[in-house]
């Protein structure tokens, strides 16, 4: 089943064209990796999907519902954008955990705020009609997520007491807590010491095994080959090549892809 369809996304910053017509679709439970040299527009694409940037052209369709259409972007209210964001999760390169909260609170905060708001306005959240029930469920979910990323013992620690790899795993759990349809990662291991990348990549692999739909921007070519159903090579704001990893990584057709990948094999 198709969860995501992206049509002709164009994004300019002033006169600089950063995305020049991006089209692709993603099936439920599949993993898409995006590779490409620095400046090719990978981060900008993820930011557009998460509504941190507004494209000048194009459409974003999730599960058949048009979340964004550049034609009527003026009409989009803050509230609508906010609800759209919940379809996507984003794990940042720099983690961006909330430093003043414990690990557990980082995971529960956003959903608690949402649940309280929904119960107040609509009388229920996820089948819970009282704030107390909703919070209890959120709390239990956080425990499950902490287990999933292997950080149960760190529940009451503060981010500054964790290693980079642990912080990134918390950030993954925090994103999962909102139960996004599609979880995006922007170079999740680039800010980590080499010996800490393994634990983060392992968690992402496990997420694939549980059937989560993911888009991963990464420079870990070997990881992309192993974990992806599809690999996208971006170059200068367009998709230069896209296909299964055996094709794009093992046997690239586009000379730009070949050149890019050769830089990795040389190392």
């Amino acid at each position, binding site marked *: 089943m198709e969860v995501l369809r992206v049509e002709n996304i164009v994004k300019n910053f002033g006169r600089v064209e950063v995305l020049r017509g991006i089209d692709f679709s993603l099936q439920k439970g599949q993993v898409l990796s995006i590779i490409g040299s620095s400046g090719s527009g990978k981060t900008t694409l993820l930011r557009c999907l998460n509504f941190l940037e507004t494209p000048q052209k194009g459409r974003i369709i999730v599960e058949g519902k048009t979340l964004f259409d550049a034609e009527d972007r003026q009409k989009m209210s803050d509230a609508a954008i906010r609800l759209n964001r919940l379809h996507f999760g984003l794990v940042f390169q720099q983690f961006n955990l909330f*430093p003043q909260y414990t690990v557990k609170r980082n995971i529960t905060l956003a959903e608690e705020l949402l649940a309280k708001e929904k119960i107040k306005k609509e009388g229920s959240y996820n089948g819970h009609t009282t704030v107390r029930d909703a919070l209890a469920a959120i709390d239990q979910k956080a425990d499950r997520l902490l287990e999933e990323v292997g950080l149960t013992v760190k529940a009451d620690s503060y981010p500054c007491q964790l290693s980079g790899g642990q912080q990134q795993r918390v950030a993954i759990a925090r994103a999962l807590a909102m139960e996004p349809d599609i979880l995006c990662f922007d170079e999740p291991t680039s800010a980590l010491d080499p010996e800490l990348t393994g634990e983060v990549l392992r968690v992402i692999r496990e997420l694939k095994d549980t059937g989560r739909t993911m888009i991963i921007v990464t420079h870990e070519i070997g990881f992309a080959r192993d974990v992806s159903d599809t690999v996208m090579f971006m170059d200068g704001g367009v998709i230069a090549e896209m296909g299964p990893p055996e094709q794009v990584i093992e046997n690239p057709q586009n000379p730009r892809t070949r050149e890019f990948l050769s830089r990795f094999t040389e190392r």
Partner: protein
Amino acid sequence: MFITVINALNEGFLQTLKLFAVTLVGALPLGLVISFGSMCRFGPLRWLTRTLVWIVRGTPLMLQLIVIFYVPGFILPQNPWAVTDGRFWAAAVAFILNYACYFSEIFRGGVQGVPVGQQEAGQVLGMTRSQIFFKVTLLQMIKRIVPPMSNEIITLVKDTAIARMIAWQELIYAGYAFLKGSHGLAGLYWPLLFTGLYYLLFNGLLTLLFGWMEKKMSYFRS
């Protein structure tokens, strides 16, 4: 002798305290407004506020005090300071304006010092603007603001002494009066010693208060 000195100094100290309190009450909110102006997306307003801040921070408070006290009398039909407590209010206006500009820079540093990533993390988790401000960024701003603010406030305590320039009778004025009196050497060291002690005690209390606040927020790093 001792009692006379203490009484006079107490009176001066109360005046110092009054100027200190009025300056804080006026300059904190005004500083916040000025900081918004200096971060405004509307160019001319931003430019205007930043120029004001630049002028106020680039000239001595003593000069500003003199200008604010004497100049209106020359150019306005009626001297606005020719009222009861006029000297005090002139000093208050100068101090509030001066400190608001310093505070605005501290606020701006606090707001802009919180990484954008914090706000974006809140956004992608579906939080509203106000939730992000109150639940995520506010405390991080306060943590950034408290240390420079405590420096500035302690400087304010000492700066109140400048108000004697326009013959407003604060603590130093009260202490100094004894030097000109006929108390001999005792008229020199007692008042000086006690004047110093008053400032030290007051600033000591403030230092404790701010130290406590910093400690309260030391459990996290941002």
